[in-house]
């Protein structure tokens, strides 16, 4: 791997270095498009904290967020292709 690739991986793995964040990521990988509120309920994490962790996952390039204005569920989360590759690597060995 060259340096830019290593730095990119460093950013993504750093994004997963938290038990709560990893749980959130695994949960939304199981259910792509899950809303913020449903995710909070599923993994039983306080909303302020979940908002932070999802922000880090997004900034690390592991998830993308899309807004939908349906009832009260406005943001939905999807794993990115890069995020899926990392997850496959983690569970495959």
């Amino acid at each position, binding site marked *: 791997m060259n340096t830019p690739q290593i730095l990119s991986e460093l950013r993504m793995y750093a994004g997963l270095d938290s038990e709560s964040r990893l749980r959130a990521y695994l949960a939304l990988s199981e259910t792509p498009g899950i809303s913020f509120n449903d995710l909070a309920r599923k993994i039983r994490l306080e909303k302020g904290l979940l908002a932070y962790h999802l922000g880090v996952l997004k900034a690390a390039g592991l998830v993308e967020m899309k807004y939908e204005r349906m009832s009260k*569920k406005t943001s939905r989360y999807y794993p990115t292709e890069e995020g899926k590759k990392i997850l496959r690597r983690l569970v495959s060995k």
Partner: protein
Amino acid sequence: MGKLLASADPDSRHRRSVDLQASSTSQAAILLLTADQPLLISSPELPLAKARGVFRITHYWNESLCPHRFRYSDAIPLHLERWSVLAQLTVKGPQIVRPGSVNLGGWLARGFLGVNHAGASSVSARDGRVAFILADWTRRPTMFWQTIKWDSRVNNVVRDEVSERGLMSMSEASLRRIRATLRELEHRVRRHRVTVVLMGSNRQGLLQRRRLRDALSREGVIALIPEDDFPKDVPPSIAERKALSMEEIDLIFLNLQSWGTATEFGQFHEHEQIARKLRVLVDCHHHPLCSDPRSYLSDLCLTHLAAYGHVYPIASNRGSPCPSAKKTIVRLAVRYGQWRALR
């Protein structure tokens, strides 16, 4: 998920055994670790032919149970983060374990420490040595069965890593591997991971921060922009305050560009935990050391500079001798990661 059994053989009068059986969760590499040298009992993915004399132990998963440290000149790094202690043995009397009593299933074993190095045929231990059996559970699910017998007493069996459902959950195993990989990556680039938050004004300021985020991402830095990254489901004042207080946020860059950012600066200055991480960027014409601080904001900047440091002058236009906000932030974030790596 599978089951783990690690137990002494109660029927044996003279010989005790440790039976390790795991199924359908992972294919563990079993490592017998002594005070002097590790012995890899089995590792289908790490044949000893390749691993001969090449264990470099970086550190232990459980320091309280594995207080010893080892160093070898050769190196295939064996990151012990993903190993967990199954059993602690105290070896009584010199023991020779012959091929017939060790079911290796075709895997290799090595003699350890000075008694018998007769190839891959036997294992021995010195009297009084403490040995640990470790297992790496992060591997592909499969079945294996391993019996190790010698005249030793099993005096402790650690079941911390054995959950009711089996050996280890996927998230636990994944977290271990993530951390092992992170250490490897940090070592290669000689830089610690860095997470920063970029605060500033909306509109033009937001566009600048997005460009800045891209530059920081290329440097391996996680850069959060609250307006983009936090969901609207949670009020921004709650989400931001929560985020900025998190210990893993290393630096908070605040560009004083507007009345809104000035208000935020006032709030963050009062919150010591946040204030310490704050890196304030001010137009060089208004930096408290470069101008006469007559305004309240400039005066507050001077107080912050005196108390915490980290108030940086940045260029307001192209002719300015000061660096741009982007240059300042990227340099500081990268250098911070390098500094953390050396600590």
